[in-house]
């Protein structure tokens, strides 16, 4: 992967400042330490930082077409490039490099803006069509790679213009964009765990939506969504014999994994010990000769640690395994760096260990890893889907004492002591039971728990943030949404909010690229998404067994202990990592009443009480943990981005 940045002027005659482009790309140099490239001509400036993975010697960017009329700076990989290249060669195109990147300029010449429909991969790019003076800014379908932009309305330096880049840092480095918090973006984050694109946590800065292309011509910006998560109407799902579907799934996933090995450097894999990453490694191992490098993370807290399961997979598949044991101190010490890379507050510490894991990949000499991310969204793995299913079942007979007891089966990994009596479970998950057709039925309990953390906001900030997060999401749902099966609606909400907004960015791209490592996501291959979205929900969740079809498809390749394992979500130590015996200085400094008051987001008195409670608490509640991490990360984020640039 790589980093890109640039500026487009409304005034076609205006030349870009080379120093500005260099500053912008230097700010995201970690994304591409292997080289830089620039294009500067009247009206446009493009910059690129390269992480070389394909055609190590010849792939410097920008890359041009034969007549040097179309240029591209590009971050990502198009995995079907050998097939595209063959086709383009047959049509008479001449290639100057062996890269996947070059396919894009030739394909654009052939097919115009629709060329993106032909790409299978993960990408964000800026393509400059010189004769037509058009700039295309585009992101991949599911939002694996990021791309931000901002309109500069009036600046002496640039005049009206658009600046863009792989990370927001690049925009701020231009000197044309002032970092300012967007209270509505933060409200969305404290509801859904991240703002929903195009909104970000910075005022005026937009993120191009997954599956969207922006066409910029002069001062005009046109947005075109070329892909979205789509499902059949309820009752219209594909039906076929199970063995046939399992075979098809293995075929598509196998090919999705296989083409993601295409690289001129070795490819490794993350291994969590769960079904998703284990399946990939199992499929991989059959197809590559040399032994695969796998990487996993472990925690001292036995409730969070998955080492035993990781060992079982390694033993079965005989990979060259690297294990990173992450301590509470590691998380506390590395959290500020993680926030510098997330460029956003977070409600869990989980990104920090992911950065340390990518660092261990880099230290082992690798720069590409496969990950199992996306499987839960595509093949139906999340507990929230099960919750929704039980609650739907329960809503059909709300007086039933037995129906809600199914919920207890969902959370065997949580400590359901008697204090979590049935009655409480019913109260908590019973939210919204009277309105099973509410579009947000599946997600209400989670969003409500998250939103309770807003209790710590200052009165002034709460007033500025408003309460419109769910209304805005409702207004932007696809028109077909009400016709989908409730399970598919839940999948859509997960794929449109948490996946691109948090999992693929704060916990994905940012933590990978912080160590200059590229992640590849076979489960997000769009062919697999199309196959899975057409399946009846009962093939994803059979009664309450998640990812049913994947289990069936993998039953001969994986140990029974993995196949029968209940899904354990990846979690890392939260507040305890900071408030244990050794509290880092920055935590104390950022949570003083003065620091809290001066940034203005939180009520200092309430935060002091929360910290005191967490220090004496033996078993902190989920909400308290989440609130503390949210407060600390918001303070860090403000100090890093807003204080610093003012």
């Amino acid at each position, binding site marked *: 992967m790589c980093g890109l940045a640039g500026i487009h002027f409304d005034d076609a005659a205006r030349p870009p400042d080379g120093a500005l482009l260099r500053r912008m790309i230097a700010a995201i140099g970690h994304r591409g330490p292997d080289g830089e490239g620039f294009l500067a001509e009247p009206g446009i400036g493009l910059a690129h930082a390269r992480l070389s993975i394909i055609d190590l010697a010849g792939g410097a960017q920008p890359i041009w077409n034969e007549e040097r009329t179309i240029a591209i700076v590009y971050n990502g990989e198009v995995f079907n490039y050998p097939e595209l290249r063959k086709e383009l060669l047959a049509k008479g195109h001449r290639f100057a490099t062996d890269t996947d990147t070059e396919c894009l300029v030739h394909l654009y010449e052939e097919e115009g803006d629709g060329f993106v429909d032909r790409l299978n991969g993960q990408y964000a790019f800026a393509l400059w069509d010189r004769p037509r003076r058009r700039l295309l800014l585009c992101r991949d379908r599911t939002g694996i790679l990021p791309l931000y932009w901002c309109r500069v309305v009036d600046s002496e330096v640039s005049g009206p213009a658009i600046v863009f880049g792989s990370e927001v840092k690049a925009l701020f480095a231009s000197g044309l964009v002032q970092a300012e918090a967007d209270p509505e973006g933060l409200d969305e984050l404290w509801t859904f765990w991240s703002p929903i694109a195009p909104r970000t946590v910075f005022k005026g800065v937009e993120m191009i939506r997954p599956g969207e292309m922006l066409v910029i011509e002069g001062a005009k910006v046109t947005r075109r969504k070329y892909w979205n998560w789509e499902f059949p109407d309820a009752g219209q799902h594909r039906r076929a014999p199970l063995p046939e579907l399992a075979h098809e799934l293995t075929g598509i996933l196998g090919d999705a994994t296989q083409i993601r090995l295409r690289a001129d450097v070795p490819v490794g894999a993350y291994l969590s010990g769960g079904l998703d990453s284990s399946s990939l490694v199992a499929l991989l191992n059959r197809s590559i000769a040399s032994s695969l490098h796998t990487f996993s993370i472990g925690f001292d807290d036995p409730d969070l640690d998955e080492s035993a399961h990781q060992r079982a997979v390694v033993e079965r598949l005989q990979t060259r395994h690297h294990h990173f044991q992450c301590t509470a101190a590691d998380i506390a010490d590395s959290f500020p760096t993680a926030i510098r890379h997330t460029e956003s507050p977070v409600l869990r510490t989980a990104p920090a260990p992911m950065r340390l894991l990518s660092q261990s990949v880099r230290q082992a000499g690798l720069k590409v890893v496969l990950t199992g991310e996306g499987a839960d969204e595509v093949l139906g793995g999340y507990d929230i889907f099960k919750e929704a299913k039980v609650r739907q079942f329960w809503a059909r007979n709300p007086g039933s004492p037995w129906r809600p007891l199914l919920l207890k089966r969902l959370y065997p990994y*949580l400590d359901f*002591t*008697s*204090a*979590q*009596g049935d*009655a*409480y*479970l019913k*109260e*908590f998950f019973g939210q919204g039971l009277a309105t099973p057709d509410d579009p947000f039925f599946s997600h209400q309990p989670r969003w*409500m*728990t998250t939103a*309770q953390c807003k*209790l*710590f906001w200052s009165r002034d900030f709460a007033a500025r943030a408003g309460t419109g997060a769910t209304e805005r999401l409702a207004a932007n749902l696809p028109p077909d949404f009400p016709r989908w099966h409730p399970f598919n609606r839940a999948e859509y909400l997960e794929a449109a909010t948490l996946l691109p907004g948090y999992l693929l960015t704060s916990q994905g791209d940012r933590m990978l690229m912080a160590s200059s490592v590229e992640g590849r996501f076979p489960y997000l291959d769009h062919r697999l998404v199309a196959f899975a979205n057409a399946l009846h929900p009962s093939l994803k969740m059979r009664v309450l067994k998640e990812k049913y079809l994947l289990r069936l498809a993998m039953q001969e390749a994986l140990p029974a202990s993995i196949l029968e394992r209940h899904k354990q979500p990846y979690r890392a130590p939260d507040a305890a990592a900071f408030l244990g015996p050794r509290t880092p200085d920055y935590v104390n400094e950022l949570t003083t009443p003065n620091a809290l008051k001066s940034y203005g987001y939180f*009520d200092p*008195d*309430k*935060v002091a*009480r*929360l910290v005191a*409670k967490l220090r004496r*608490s*033996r*078993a902190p*509640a*989920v*909400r*308290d943990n989440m609130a503390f991490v949210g407060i600390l990360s918001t303070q860090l984020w403000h100090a890093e981005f807003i204080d610093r640039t003012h």
Partner: protein
Amino acid sequence: MSDSLHDQVRRFILENYLFTDDASQLGLDDSLLGRGIVDSTGMLEIILFIEEQLGVKVADSEMIPENLDSVNRIAAFVTSKRKAA
């Protein structure tokens, strides 16, 4: 006596769940679950408080909203348990 028990319970909930000492933030009959004051894991702390600070043991069968879902209910539950002891 019963006033001070109500105060004690209310203070505990204000301090630990609403992070304030402003008593107007919590009515004696407010539902702790219904208002989202206690989340699905938070009830553990209330039971520890009742057992350790108020000296009343809570049996599994007594861990129901009827006994624990508001200041008044907790106070009434604790009072009846103390009488029975």
